[in-house]
């Protein structure tokens, strides 16, 4: 089956079975499963990359659908990562997926990236982009960077065989509000499809060692004028060696949420009688494991979008689940929906609380 499956590319003189084998042996990490990550992943998966890592913690929102074309209306409110992986598995059952339902941050970046040969950066904020750069430089991994805004896109392969890095081109991270960040500025839906596909192309070229990799070259795409420009740039020795990550990269997450650690939460859980707590686990989990029952109400995560909040606006509302993951998503959903309220995620969830209570 495999031979037939890829014959349209293994037939190519400049590709062949050797390059196909290199794709199969490759381990590629894609950061972000949004506008850039979804087309990049679809093609990398279709073309036969053996191992794909994906980092994403967002949920699917209505405003995503104009550009993140793999997601459907039926997926609203669901995890991007889970939805996407289900789709990719049905697309290619031979691919090995390694998933991280988290955001890349200073504490997990080196460990995660070290497990891959190549990184495709499709993140939506500068903090993550500079973190990816620094971690890849430390670990000596090349990365294919794509970024979009409005009708434009940028693409380059950084840190490839001693070539320039992101900081050689843009040494300093833009300050907050200096340049639109976190997709606050608009983008025409098809632009990330184009740039994300080009990222898949560059990733395949790096892995299969074919063609001319866009290292030391910044591709600038202007969709309105249909103009591609390629700017050459060279490495600045000061930016090609990084020993450790910076103290802080600002918020690597576009939607920072308030959290409380399990120890502190346990204290107030025990001492206060009128806590406002929402358990976002499924009805079944809530019923079978009634440890939050005394003080929490149960609104499963997938019902948060429709739920009418009838709680005290002057007091914090705590969200809890088994591990703290779904509740963090829940906080984000409720923050967007109910302004003025303060929602707090119980980090580590019930798993952590149970350990503490023992």
């Amino acid at each position, binding site marked *: 089956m495999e031979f037939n499956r890829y014959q349209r590319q293994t037939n190519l003189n400049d590709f062949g079975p050797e390059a196909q084998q290199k794709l199969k042996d490759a381990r590629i990490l894609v950061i972000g499963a949004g506008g850039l990550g979804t087309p990049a992943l679809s093609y990398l998966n279709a073309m036969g990359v053996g191992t794909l890592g994906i980092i994403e913690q967002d949920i699917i929102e209505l405003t995503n659908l104009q550009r993140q074309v793999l997601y459907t209306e039926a997926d609203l409110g669901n995890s991007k990562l889970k939805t996407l992986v289900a789709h990719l598995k049905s697309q290619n059952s031979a691919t090995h997926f390694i998933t991280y339902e988290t955001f890349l941050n200073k504490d997990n970046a080196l460990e995660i990236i070290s497990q891959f040969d190549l990184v495709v950066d499709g993140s939506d904020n*500068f903090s993550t982009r500079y973190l990816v750069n620094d971690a890849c430089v430390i670990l000596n991994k090349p990365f294919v960077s794509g970024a979009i805004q409005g009708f434009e896109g940028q693409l380059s392969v950084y840190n490839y065989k001693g070539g320039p890095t992101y900081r050689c081109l843009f040494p300093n991270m833009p300050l907050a509000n200096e340049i*639109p960040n976190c997709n606050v500025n608009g983008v025409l839906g098809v632009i990330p499809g184009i740039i994300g596909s080009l990222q898949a192309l560059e990733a395949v070229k790096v892995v299969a060692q074919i063609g001319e990799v866009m290292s030391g070259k910044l591709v600038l795409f202007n969709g309105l*004028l249909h103009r591609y420009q390629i700017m050459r740039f060279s490495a600045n020795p000061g930016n090609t060696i990084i020993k450790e990550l910076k103290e802080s990269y600002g918020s690597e997450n576009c939607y920072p949420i308030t959290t409380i650690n399990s120890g502190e939460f346990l204290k107030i859980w025990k001492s206060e009688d009128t806590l406002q707590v929402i358990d976002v686990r499924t009805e079944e989990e809530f019923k079978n494991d009634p440890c939050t029952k005394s003080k929490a109400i149960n609104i499963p995560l997938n019902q948060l979008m429709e739920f009418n909040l009838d709680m005290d606006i002057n007091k914090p509302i705590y969200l809890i689940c088994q591990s703290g993951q779904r509740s963090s998503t829940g906080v984000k959903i409720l923050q967007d929906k109910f302004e003025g309220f303060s929602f707090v995620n119980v980090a580590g969830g019930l798993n952590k609380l149970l350990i503490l209570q023992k």
Partner: protein
Amino acid sequence: MTILLFGITKDIVGSSTLSMPSSSEFGAKNTKTVKELRIYLGKMYPELNKLSSLAIAVNNSYADDDTIIDNFDEIALIPPVSGG
């Protein structure tokens, strides 16, 4: 001299290209450098000064502040973009 504008610089200036009058428009008599161009553009469009990183390309090559430019060069202002 034509200056192509990308990303936020397009929004700051209000168009995708900027035509610069020739000669010693930005203060220098004989030679002009990227640094002088930066200063001149910063006076015309103060918002540009706020950018922490703004790459300038001369004839499709990244240019540092000492790069000399003339009226026939094509310049591009390239800020980073973050969208994904």
